[in-house]
């Protein structure tokens, strides 16, 4: 099983990492990272914190765009071009194909987010003489959230087309960060039922504080694993019932 999963994930990684969209988004993210310190709203004494906040936001935005570009069309295009036949006609379970696809894309996102973080660090080092190691804590949270969003996109794409996937994933991300306003507007709604991604929002402690602790990282990893498993199970069930 692990051999088949790693084979699919490896092929997805190799195929995705060479796509032009990865380098196009990366290029603009780098331009923005270099531009961030010159934003006019910086005040004396808070500029480092604001830079970290902007760097994390840019990393998340670029990662989100890239994850959507890679995940929303991966399975639909494989089905449309029939490349999926060469995989699922072999002794491979449908769920292995879904999970392998998610793993490959999430690995690409890990590499891209790591590259962004290195660039953010370099800019910070040059501009503020601060290595900003806590940005890696932010990068880990961003990667986990992007992983959840990728799982959502892959799950929806197992039964739907690319446009529906992109719109649904954006909606999911928006809803996932609207927990507090929603609960305030709908008193009595059980808060545990609301699909929240707020656990991954670590901008304040990373940008303006001392980062987060090991326990919080474990909680975040648990939320990440729960979301990913649930979404990939749903996606696998949908894909298993699909005629190709």
């Amino acid at each position, binding site marked *: 099983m692990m051999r088949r999963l790693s084979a699919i994930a490896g092929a997805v990684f190799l195929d995705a990492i060479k796509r032009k969209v990865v380098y196009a988004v990366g290029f603009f993210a780098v331009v923005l990272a270099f531009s961030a310190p010159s934003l006019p709203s910086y005040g004396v004494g808070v500029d480092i914190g604001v830079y970290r906040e902007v760097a994390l936001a840019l990393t998340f935005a670029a990662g989100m765009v890239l994850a959507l570009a890679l995940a929303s069309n991966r399975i639909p295009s494989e089905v449309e071009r029939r490349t999926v036949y*060469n995989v*699922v006609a*072999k*002794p491979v379970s449908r769920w292995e194909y879904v999970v392998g696809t998610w793993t490959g894309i999430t690995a690409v996102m890990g590499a891209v987010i790591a590259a962004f973080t290195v660039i953010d660090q370099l800019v910070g080092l040059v501009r503020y003489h601060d290595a900003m190691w806590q940005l890696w804590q932010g990068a880990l949270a961003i990667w986990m959230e992007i992983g959840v969003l990728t799982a959502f996109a892959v799950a929806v794409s197992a039964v739907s087309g690319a446009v529906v996937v992109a719109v649904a994933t954006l909606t999911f991300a928006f809803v996932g960060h609207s927990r507090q306003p929603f609960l305030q507007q709908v008193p009595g709604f059980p808060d545990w039922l609301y699909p929240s991604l707020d656990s991954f929002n670590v901008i304040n402690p990373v940008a303006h504080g001392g980062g987060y602790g090991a326990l919080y990282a474990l909680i975040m990893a648990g939320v990440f694993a729960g979301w990913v498993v649930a979404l990939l199970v749903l996606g696998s069930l949908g894909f298993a019932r699909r005629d190709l």
Partner: protein
Amino acid sequence: MTDTQAPAAVDVATSDAIAVSGARKVYTVFPQTKRVAVEDVSITVPVGAIHGLLGPNGAGKTTTLKMLLGLVRPNAGTFRVLGLDSRSRAGRAELGFLPEQPYFPPQLSAAQAMRLYARLAGLPEREIKPRTAQLLELVGLAGQQRTLLSAFSRGMLQRLGIAQAIVGRPKVVVLDEPASGLDPLGQRDVRNLMLMLRDDGATVLLSSHQLSEVEAVCDRVSIMSRGRVAAEGPIHELLGVAAATSVTVSGLSGDVPPALTALAGEATVVEGGLLLFSVPDVSVRRVVDAVDDAGGTIVAVAPKRESLEDYFTRMLSNDSGEVA
């Protein structure tokens, strides 16, 4: 093209390599329209045979293959390969599949793609490199290991598709239009490959609408029309016209003696100005003599046979159209 490594021994206890029984597939088109793609199809292929699946577009060939391979969920029917459920992982481990007009992740190289499919087929790690080199040479892609698939032509992708279909040394190989996109040399290579696979003990199920491809290699054929098996048997029996022979003649250039016309009927002028007579088997000797007497030359004497196109046309016109 030769393969130096034969597939693993076939389970001798199983006489049928492929056994499809009562296959049925109904597609539901939004919102409620139902379209019957395959209606009660049964096909049996003995171990070591090359079996053709013929039929016009929309006959249900590809849907039948997809059900066999677990790509499409059937509404009814059983699908077995070497005694195993062909839709299970164990069953698919015995199968190799070339889809019609195969396509691959464009950013992978040929070697990377072959590595992926070899690992999925369960080939041991140490065998992947030599097997990849061997198969790429076998299908005419030697030296292309590092070439990105985005740079491959249609024919090269087809050849790679064949290589990935047999990378795991499957005992049963399902080929959907394998000669599609290939030049005549490539088509000949594919025919030789199928014969080689049979010689190595594998069973081949070939779906095609090219009569020449099928008749060159197939032991038996199933002809599908409108979701059903309309006929099954050796192709020369299915397409043969009972008790009739075609006699092809040169050297008469339309100046056919009345005696010959009386004996053989009107001739059809075919390519190169040759005359084609369709005569009863019992009259062949006398017709040959009459041609000789008239100064003509016998070019060919062969059992008369319908063209596949004629067969399909007749079959479709006879079909009651019960299947949508």
